[in-house]
């Protein structure tokens, strides 16, 4: 076993150790054992950093990959399935080691931050235990080398997310939110499991590497539609976990959990697990499946951004922003901008964690006030939070010189390139939605910054009624000094253990961490280390090619498949130049794509790089200046505008009415189905059971009377006969000698008569 593998297993198990220690012994330890969690995560992060150093910095090889597995369960020859072996394994490549370092770093910072944020909570120790099990599960997803174990850890993160969303379970809204999150994830996970089963039915293995090798060898026995279905079903897991439309509804509600949890789970790591998973299965996705993914991502990005602009709750704005950014990542994967999507995953994890922790600091300082309408002017009181929050906001908005700019532009460039290659008008919707969402992102983040940090404090404007309504969890302990005056003198900068994570995360949102060129992420180590992997589906089955591609892009059909390395023939029409350029870059960059479509998409993404930069910069500036105009200079009054476009405003404020729609359809629908089933249960199932019971009862009744009359009758009759005979015979035995003598005489006389008659004859 490679030493890095051993170390990665240690990293995986350390948070589990933290969980075990804290869940059982937190009451026996000083400070409820928070130092155990922080210390163990610190160790795990140090080891992860070492792995990262060894793999990404020392080896510096895009193709670096080491794997190790063992047979976990050998079920032998299962009837109807064949030999069934379930393996567990670890794979370390560049993506894994980056994710490992990212997850442990954010988890460590959140642990540290929570020692301040959660101080005084009555379940303080259990909170850290839950963080431990979450980190364990998340690392499990990152390290898994097969679908089966990734599914196990997938469900485990679902569980820990459930536990942490409902951490303040006394609150009804938190309990509802955790239920909602769990159920929405279940829907996605069912699809994911079906997808896994489709692949397993064909290849009898769960291992990524073996499945891809088999696919590349063209051993998929079903039609391509099945492969597309498998890809989309697997993607459903991502739809649930990464809160994509139509299962996005749980993530905003998940903000009921403690804010550091929102930062760790619902912004940086777990929701990114969906994207990570799609990246892991990226090579088996057919063009049709990728189209579905791209459209869902683009729609999610746009929809969530439109909702975010009207929300009042500081965490809800960030939650919808997270949904929107996850939409970007999914969009990126869908259009084939694999590196860019994962790049955005990592950069987003850092700046969004920073934003959430910053909002946590604000909420903490404001004594659990979350409504931005009653904030304002915090810039002076909380300079550190202000600075880091602003930096992260700029990264999220995608302003040049930030990490978000690099990754978002790479995705948008990929989207433009994709649309160019596909050539259909509808495909231009994807980059258009992407750019429009970029503008909205800049707008709502500008709005948030201004509402929270600038202007004058509006605490006193808060209606008194709202105060009782917004009765918050940990409020009870603070009530005495928070009800009358959460005036500014109560608002102060948070302590060092909450400040340090903010600074570190903000520092990781700057461009030079990832790329030397502030305008091009492609020149950085990240994009170089995580190249788009060559697909295993298109090239292997050229005759089965994509249905959709065949219809909308007949030009692609003219490419003689599969193109050999560095010899992609020129394509007729407008794509000739790009294809030729693609073969050129293949020769130069060393990435070879045997699938011509993929080669073209990857190249077109590079070609669209500067176009994307220009458009998105304009969009970001547009969005920010709109926010300035509306909220700083007040040229357009936001309230009047809202009144003027009231239907649209309400549409956005009420989150496109998705909750109401789901309530009216799925929830009401399942209630109707449940009621039908109840009726069926009561009348049909119970009826059958009762009918059988009645029959049995009737039969028992018959049986009883048979027993009573026939069997008992026979017994009683025998007894009666014996009794009667006895009674008769008893009379003969009188005990009187004389009667015996009479009997003797009678018998002798009888014998005499008998003898005489014999004699006469």
């Amino acid at each position: 076993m490679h030493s890095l593998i051993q170390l990665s297993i240690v990293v995986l198990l350390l948070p589990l150790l933290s969980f075990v220690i804290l869940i059982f012994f937190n009451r026996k330890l000083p400070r409820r054992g928070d130092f155990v969690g922080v210390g163990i995560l610190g160790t795990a992060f140090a080891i992860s950093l070492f792995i990262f150093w060894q793999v990404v910095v020392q080896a510096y090889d895009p193709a670096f990959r080491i794997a190790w597995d063992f047979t976990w369960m050998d079920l032998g020859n299962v009837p109807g399935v064949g030999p069934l072996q379930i393996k567990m394994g670890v794979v370390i490549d560049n993506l894994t080691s980056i994710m490992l370092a990212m997850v442990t770093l954010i988890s460590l910072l959140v642990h540290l931050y929570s020692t301040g944020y959660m101080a005084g909570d009555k379940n303080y120790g259990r909170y850290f235990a839950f963080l431990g099990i979450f980190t364990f599960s998340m690392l499990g997803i990152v390290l898994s080398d097969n679908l089966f174990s990734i599914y196990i850890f997938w469900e485990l993160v679902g569980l820990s997310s459930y536990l942490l969303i409902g951490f303040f379970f006394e609150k009804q809204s938190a309990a509802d939110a955790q239920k909602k999150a769990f159920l929405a994830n279940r829907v996605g996970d069912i699809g994911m499991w079906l997808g896994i089963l489709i692949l397993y039915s064909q290849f009898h293995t769960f291992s990524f590497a073996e499945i891809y090798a088999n696919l590349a060898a063209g051993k998929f026995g079903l039609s391509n539609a099945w492969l597309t279905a498998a890809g989309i079903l697997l993607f459903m897991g991502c739809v649930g976990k990464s809160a994509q439309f139509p299962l996005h509804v749980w993530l905003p509600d998940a903000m009921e959990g403690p804010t550091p949890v929102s930062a760790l789970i619902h912004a940086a790591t777990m929701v990114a697990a969906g994207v990570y998973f799609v990246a892991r299965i990226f090579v088996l996705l057919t063009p049709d499946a990728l189209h579905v993914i791209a459209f869902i991502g683009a729609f999610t990005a746009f929809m969530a951004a439109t909702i975010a602009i009207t929300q009042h709750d500081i965490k809800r704005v960030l939650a919808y922003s997270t949904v929107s950014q996850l939409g970007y990542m999914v969009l990126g994967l869908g259009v084939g901008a694999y590196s860019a999507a994962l790049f955005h995953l990592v950069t987003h994890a850092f700046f969004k964690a920073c934003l959430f922790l910053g909002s946590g600091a604000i909420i903490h300082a404001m004594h659990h006030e979350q409504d931005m309408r009653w904030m304002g002017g915090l810039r002076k009181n909380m300079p550190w939070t202000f600075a880091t929050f602003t930096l992260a906001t700029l990264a999220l908005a995608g302003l040049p010189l930030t990490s978000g700019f690099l990754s978002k532009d790479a995705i948008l460039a990929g989207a433009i390139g994709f649309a160019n290659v596909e050539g259909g008008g509808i495909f231009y919707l994807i980059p258009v939605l992407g750019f429009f969402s970029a503008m909205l992102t800049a707008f709502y983040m500008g709005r948030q910054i201004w509402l929270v940090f600038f202007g004058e404090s509006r605490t006193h404007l808060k209606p008194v009624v709202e105060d009782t309504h917004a009765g918050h969890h940990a409020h009870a302990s603070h009530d005495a000094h928070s009800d009358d005056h959460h005036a500014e003198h109560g608002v102060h900068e948070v302590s060092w253990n909450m400040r340090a994570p903010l600074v570190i995360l903000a520092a990781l949102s700057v461009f030079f961490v990832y790329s030397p060129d502030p305008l091009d992420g492609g020149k950085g180590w990240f994009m170089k280390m995580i190249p788009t992997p060559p697909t295993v589906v298109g090239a292997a089955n050229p005759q089965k090619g994509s249905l959709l591609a065949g219809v909308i892009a007949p030009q692609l059909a003219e490419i003689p498949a599969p193109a050999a390395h560095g010899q992609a023939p020129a394509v007729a029409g407008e794509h000739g130049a790009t294809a030729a350029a693609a073969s050129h870059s293949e020769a130069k960059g060393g990435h070879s794509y045997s699938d011509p479509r993929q080669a073209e998409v990857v190249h077109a993404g590079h070609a669209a790089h500067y176009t994307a930069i220009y458009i998105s910069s304009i969009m970001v500036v547009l969005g920010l200046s709109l926010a300035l105009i509306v909220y700083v200079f007040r040229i357009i009054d936001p309230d009047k505008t809202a009144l003027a476009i009231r239907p649209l405003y309400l549409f956005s404020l009420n989150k496109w009415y998705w909750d109401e729609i789901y309530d009216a359809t799925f929830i009401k629908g399942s209630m109707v189905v449940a009621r039908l089933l109840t009726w069926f249960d009561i009348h049909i199932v119970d009826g059958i059971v009762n009918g059988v019971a009645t029959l049995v009862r009737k039969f028992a009744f018959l049986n009883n009377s048979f027993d009573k009359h026939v069997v008992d009758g026979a017994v009683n009759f025998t007894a009666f006969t014996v009794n009667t005979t006895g009674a008769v015979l008893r009379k003969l035995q009188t005990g009187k000698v004389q009667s015996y003598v009479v009997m003797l005489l009678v018998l002798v006389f009888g014998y005499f008569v008998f003898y005489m008659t014999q004699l006469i004859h």
Partner: protein
Amino acid sequence: MEQLTTIGLNHYLTISAFLLGFGLFAVVTRKNAIVILMGVELILNAANINFLAFSKYNGGMQGAMFSLFIIVIAAAEAAIALAIVINIFKIFKSVDVSSIDSLKE
């Protein structure tokens, strides 16, 4: 007529049969144990008459000898029987055979 006037074997046998009948009747119907013993004596003597009658008309002495034995035995029997009756009286305070039915148990 001659048969009626001349006393022959049949007369003896008839008397014997009557004696046997009276004896049996006494044994079966009387309640007093002593009277039953008397019935038994009648039965024995009916047998004696039979023996003697047959002895006379058969020309031998065996019948006479036999009836002598019977007389002796009857004496012994009477002694034993009376002893039994005395014991019964001691136990049951009665010699009424109808009240003595412990054989039933």
